[in-house]
């Protein structure tokens, strides 16, 4: 598993270099999450999305009208 070890090393380096990444919503640790999910909890494939936050995102006027 050399690949994973290298990935771990790279990840740890990146984590230490990215202190600007700020955890802001939830302060529970991993164990608490696992406890909540319970053993053999339904597996949800991990995903993350970047929600861009821009004032212009409140613009409409594109696309076809759907109301009939």
């Amino acid at each position, binding site marked *: 598993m050399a690949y994973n070890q290298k990935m771990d090393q790279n990840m740890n380096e990146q984590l230490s270099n990215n202190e600007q990444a700020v955890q802001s919503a939830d302060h529970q640790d991993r164990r608490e999450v696992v406890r909540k999910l319970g053993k053999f909890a339904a597996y*949800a494939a*991990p995903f993350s999305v970047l929600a*861009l936050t821009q004032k212009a995102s409140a613009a409409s006027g594109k696309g076809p009208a759907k109301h009939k």
Partner: protein
Amino acid sequence: MVLARPDVQGLFLLNSTSRLIWSALRLGVTVESLARQFTAEFDIPHSQAVRDIAATIDSWREDLLSTAPPTQSSVPYLPSTFSPCFVGNYRLGAKQFRLEVNDQDFADEIAPRLAHLHSDTASPGIHFQVLRVGGQLKLLTDGVLFGEELEANAARAVLLQEISRVAQPGAEWLAILHAGACGAGTDCVIMPAETNVGKTTLTAALMHSGLRFLSDDSAAIDRRTLQVAVMPFALMLREGSWPVLASRFPELAAVPILERSGYNVRFLAPPTNNQLPAVPKCLLFIEFRPDAVTTLNPLTPFESLLRLQKTGFWVAHDRVSIASFLSWIQSIPSYRATYSDLSEATALVRGLLNGSSN
């Protein structure tokens, strides 16, 4: 879990398993160890756990953990002379303002939304300018740049948000959602939606039903009060919504037909007699679907954030503001509604305002 970087204008939303990966790696847990834990906890093949964890970390390298330098901002170029093709004087609440535009497409975008606020008084007030410079629309208040957009509709949204802000003394936005908002008394319902799913049509119907109009396109949340501001700008109704609104607004038939983004539209001016903000009772993510049965389903705060990611929103990008916004999202009830019947949707919203979610 929600993460943010100061140099990225956005929020990273992590689901429960993604959060496990993030937290474990911060604690120094190896991928191999975490994969074994996934296998044990979720009863999934080890190979799948390794594959999913690796894919997640790879995706983070592209954005969340990217070391790419942020885009450098430069001092914007603004011309010293300016020849407007459109000038308008308006009044919103107690504020008089003047708008000058040098781009005809933007003038066509903004003028119908402000027409009912026209003022014959040309007295000095707040001075807004929108200039097309080098392919970009520059937005200025009293000579100070506050926005740059490529598209007219994006610039229009930003300008209206700013007009509304300066019209209300002391107002500062914590967040702005792409949403309609209607209310009764001091309360309101915020209705975030993607474009073209019936938001404006429903907002018009709610207004007709006697609810107070707050906003059609942008629901601005005040930083201090967490109330929704009034943005009394005209609603743009596409041709598809005219028949369903004809009985409610017979005067629409006499409104001139304009063309925007390839569609025939009419503009409907809302009342402007009540400028008081309102307390949001809930978020209601709405979607019109032909033949759909009217349904109302609760959403978790994380589900709400995922939906806001699709409908569009802005949050002031600093630690305090993000924390305040997330706290607000966690505290406010949130629902998803689908409907095909406008009267049923209207009754649903009125029910929510009356405290019913059944």
